[in-house]
């Protein structure tokens, strides 16, 4: 006998008589509250730690085998300027600046502003990671669907086992091998960077094709490891939903297998993945530290790693803020979207 699920009861404590406006206002307040908390955390995390950006810069310049020139340290301290006031005043200033969209000047790229630096890195990350993320999701979902549809067949084994093995290869390692094989040995693709040394960034055809060639290997690395989660998740969910009575009845109704797989399996099985996907998309803004590092890709991940290691507070804070807001917004949208996709969802509970 197939799984019977008790018809989900309405919550026992419904939000009595709450008007829709109030409901949205509440959700929005919740959103703002989380945003504020995240922003505050982003302010505090770097500041609560010991360390001096000037020292970090100088020691990076000097390298580990050279002694540090105190005069240089002094000059850099002056250049960066010490933050004014106590922590609270700094916090107020910080909030004020954020509201105005002013993130300050980057320490590592002085005198370029943080906004400028993020503007440089963001498109690369958004395009590379965003596109591969979406492709991973689509491919993963399709493969997972296929595997569940052909459960226990050879296709299922090939998909699940194959993707399991490939997908769990450590991804920086995979990246290295890809570079070695396809860039260094075969010389099919450039070995790193977002574009070649000779081309100048812009909307020219040459540049775009150059950038595309440079993005192939990192994209492949991301695509090999990306879909596994979606595949397994989708397959598991779908196996479950295909075992339910409504799917059994669909069989009895003589619906084509494909139709059953899609509307009675995949359509339901995809729901739990929506939030995960939204969060994944939201975190695209943070880039992928590892891939970008291995491929020297000029995206947010590498910028972040650099800002952290050289204690570039303004840059670090801004990147944190970006990723946080990205995930938060994605999360918020996913919640709203979920209500549309899953008619059963009890709106009060998705908060």
């Amino acid at each position, binding site marked *: *006998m197939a*799984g019977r699920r*008790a018809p*989900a*009861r309405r*919550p*026992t404590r419904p939000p009595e008589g709450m008007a829709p406006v109030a409901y949205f206002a509440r959700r929005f307040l*919740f959103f703002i509250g*989380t945003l504020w*908390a*995240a922003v505050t*955390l982003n302010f505090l*995390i*770097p500041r609560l730690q*010991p*360390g001096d950006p000037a020292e970090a810069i100088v020691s990076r310049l000097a390298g580990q085998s050279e002694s540090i020139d105190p005069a240089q340290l002094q000059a850099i301290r002056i250049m960066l300027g010490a933050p004014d006031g106590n922590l609270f005043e700094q916090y107020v200033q910080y909030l004020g600046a954020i509201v105005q969209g002013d993130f300050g000047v980057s320490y590592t790229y002085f005198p370029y502003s943080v906004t400028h630096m993020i503007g440089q890195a963001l498109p690369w990350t958004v395009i590379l990671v965003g596109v591969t993320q979406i492709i991973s999701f689509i491919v993963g979902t399709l493969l997972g669907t296929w595997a569940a549809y052909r459960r226990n067949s050879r296709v299922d*084994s090939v998909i*699940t*086992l194959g993707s*399991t*093995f490939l*997908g*769990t*290869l*450590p*991804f*920086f*390692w*995979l990246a*290295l*091998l890809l570079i*070695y094989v396809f860039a260094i040995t075969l010389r099919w693709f450039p070995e790193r960077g977002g574009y070649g040394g000779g081309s100048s960034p812009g909307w020219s055809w040459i540049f775009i094709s150059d950038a595309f060639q440079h993005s192939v290997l990192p994209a492949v690395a991301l695509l090999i490891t990306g879909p596994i989660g979606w595949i*397994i998740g989708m397959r*598991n969910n779908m*196996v*479950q939903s295909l*075992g339910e009575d409504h799917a059994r009845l669909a069989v009895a109704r003589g619906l084509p297998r494909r139709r059953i797989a899609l509307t009675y399996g995949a359509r339901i099985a995809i729901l*739990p993945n929506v*939030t*995960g996907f939204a*969060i994944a998309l939201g*975190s695209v803004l*943070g880039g992928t*530290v*590892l891939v970008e*590092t291995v491929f020297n890709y000029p995206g947010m991940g590498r910028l*972040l*790693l650099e800002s*952290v*290691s050289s204690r570039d507070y303004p840059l*670090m804070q801004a990147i*944190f803020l970006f*990723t*946080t807001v990205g*995930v*938060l917004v994605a*999360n918020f949208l996913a919640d709203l979207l979920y209500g549309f996709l899953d008619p059963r969802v009890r709106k009060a*509970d*998705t*908060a």
Partner: protein
Amino acid sequence: MSTPAPAVPVPGTDTEALQASATELSRRSRLPGWFVILWRNRKCRAGLLLLGAFVLVALFAPLIAPYDPRGDAFPTSLGPTGGHWLGTTAQGEDVFSQLIVGARTSLIVGLAAGLLSTLIGLVIGLTAGYLQGWVDEVLSFLINLGLVVPALPLMVTLAAYAPVRGLWLIIAVISVTGWAYGARIKRSQIITLRTRDYITAARFAGDGTARIIAREIVPNMTSLIVVGFMGAALGAIGGEAGLAFLGLGDPQTVSWGTMLNQASLGGALLTGQWAWLIAPGLALSLLITSFTLINFGIDALSNPHLRED
């Protein structure tokens, strides 16, 4: 109307089959139920065996490893030879010994961080989902916060700022950044479970909240919890390796991640020491694969329907 079919034997001629399944039942019942359920799934069995092999290697690492993993008395940058199956590092350490000992680190990190973050997620998710009300509001807020604070960046930051980088720091960092998603999923799951009639029925049977959660709700979430645990463990193993690869790991520990990092720094590609570079990567992948394979059997734990095939 057709005439009834000719006589057939008395019901129960397939006694042998019945007997067989009964003896099998008793033979198996000595093992814990969850294990039997997992063991039945072919892929899951392969995963369990693989994981078991890793665990054994990790447990007996000092016995298996031919040399001290940090002993650097050998010629440097050797390729695979009879004495050094996977060659030596640029410092003259035996790669094979490091690989064996590194299994320990990866397993410890995976299990500890997986457990820790699952536990945090479970406690917070379950409390929020079960109690609801303002507790839920507060905890949901925390969960959301944990969710939006970017994990890897935070991991990088914490690892970079912590004064001393021990293995436990890495574990703590990974757990602290990794619990939120699980908590969220568990919360929403428990919200759908807590209003089921059988939960109310358990209250009628006089069970307390703690018992209801532990005995009625959790079994229905086993696959979710275990999958969450494995996800966290995988994340931790990969995370440790990634941090180590970025140079943010604990250089004192021998782990596959530090091996990769050192292979990379030590110019394994340059000197053509493929074994040094490939071995830890493959080992890492196999370990993670074993987890994913086990995952195939997990569903049957909380969905008895899936136990039959």
